[in-house]
């Protein structure tokens, strides 16, 4: 194999090239194409079952590709895992689990701490700072499940921040989140972007796509658009993506992109 010359510019944080994922004979995603630069955020927008979660799993290297290629920070998804952090939906986690907020955030450091070593001061400091970034520094000793849904989502974001990721993946982070927590999430995401991390957010919330993301990917099994938010979120494209079904928007903050 020939050696390729060292690239002069840093590789894109995420490069999707004709990505196709199949569950059995059914295609879950077909020919998804797009690129996300460091410091940029892209919103994955589409109805339930559109394949947003599947795309996130594919970027994490957790589902095999039936075709195409994904490169994360210039590497394969599996090889890049250390620099990628994933934020699941808080309400999928057991609120009775006996674990403190501080312990949850420290989990973001586990891969760095290793299996046997004790957590170093630097790890604890990173966890503390991450919790501060989402505005919950005073809750470190509370049990995770005693927090509100929005606060739990912020704790999970803090866990991801503590891992110092260069690519952050969030699965529907704004679902059922109150306004205060929503703002805290947006602020923390903005800060991460400033530090050069790329962000992928799946959401149905067009308003938030406008607020947090430079780019959107319209998705419903196949791609209905990928590009700058204003230009891509057109009523025609949205109608095509959602197949004519009503859009799920929150009543008071509806922003449908005007063409």
């Amino acid at each position, binding site marked *: 194999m020939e050696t390729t010359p060292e690239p002069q510019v840093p590789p894109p944080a995420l490069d999707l090239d004709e990505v196709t994922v199949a569950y059995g004979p059914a295609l879950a995603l077909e020919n998804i194409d797009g690129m996300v630069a460091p410091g940029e955020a892209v919103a994955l927008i589409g109805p339930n079952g559109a394949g947003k979660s599947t795309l996130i799993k594919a970027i994490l290297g957790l589902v095999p590709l039936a075709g195409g290629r994904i490169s994360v920070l210039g590497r394969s998804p599996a090889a890049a*895992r*250390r620099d990628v952090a994933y934020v699941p939906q808080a309400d999928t*986690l057991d609120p009775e689990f*006996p674990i403190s907020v501080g312990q*949850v955030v420290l*989990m973001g450091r*586990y891969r760095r701490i290793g*299996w046997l070593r004790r957590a170093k001061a630097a790890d604890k400091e990173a966890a503390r700072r991450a919790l501060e970034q989402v505005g919950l520094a005073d809750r470190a000793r509370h049990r995770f499940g005693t927090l509100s849904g929005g606060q739990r989502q912020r704790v999970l974001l803090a866990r991801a921040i503590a*891992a110092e990721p260069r690519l952050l993946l969030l699965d529907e982070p704004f679902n059922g989140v109150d306004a205060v927590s929503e703002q805290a999430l947006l602020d923390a995401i903005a800060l991460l972007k400033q530090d050069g991390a790329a962000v992928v957010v799946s959401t149905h919330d067009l308003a938030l796509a406008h607020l947090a993301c430079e780019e959107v990917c319209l998705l419903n099994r196949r791609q209905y658009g990928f590009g700058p938010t204003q230009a891509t979120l057109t009523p025609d494209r949205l109608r095509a993506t959602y197949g004519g079904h009503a859009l799920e928007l929150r009543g008071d903050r509806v922003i449908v992109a005007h063409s």
Partner: protein
Amino acid sequence: MYQIFIEPFRFPFMARALAELMILGALAGTVGVLILLRRLAFMTDALTHTVFPGVVIGYLLSGEGGIFWGALIAGAATAVLLTLLTRHRAVTEDAALAVLLTTFFAVGVVLVSRESGYTADLTAFLFGRILTVTPAQLTQTLAVTALVIAMMVILRRPLLARSFDPEGARASGYRIGLLDLATNTVVALVVVASVRAVGTVLVIALLIVPAAAARVVSDRLALIVPIAAVLGAFAGWAGLAVSYDASIHHGLRLASGGTVVLVLIAGHLVALAAAAVIRRRPRPVRRAA
């Protein structure tokens, strides 16, 4: 008190039984916390049943000494089978388990029923024979304990991450399949080590009750684990002492395994009561300046 709790253990066989039960109690209490966190109580119950035919076959092949190895093989086979079964959720987990456990258990019962001392043997397998623990058995128990504790210490972070958030753990690169196999193996090892002493039926109590009681009084893992271990060990001691005292001094024959479980249940009830009292205690009143 001295007469009940210390005196009986002057006899070497009682001292060995005490050591065996306290080690198993502490070990099962610790592993029980993992079972609780992973919600594997039913899986554990299935495991205790599937180990049963292994116990019987081991005994038929080479007597008392074969029980451990028979149980070990059956336990290991079940741990692997369960990991595979629950990995692909084609069958609902609990239905698959229910089929598996009754099948294995029936095989065990059929095998025992061919023996002449049917009832006595069956009783021993189901409820254990704690008073005949040999030094060799004690050594086996210690070896299993060391192995299980080592696995739990090494895997504590991955196991915690996987129990709390399986998707997140997988995303950060942990091999969930291997972690689940390790979990099932740990549980199987404890069941195997305990089965001769307390029998297949009562192992489940040793594993589940201390952890459940500890969870009632605390929601911090750093406390739950030691509380469960101490409660398990204490129940072994108290149960053994009480059943001995009742049998010798009061002419009341109490099976030691069953007494241990009853002490555990009593501990759980105390924990529930304590938790209720703590919750009801009025918040500290702010002092007037």
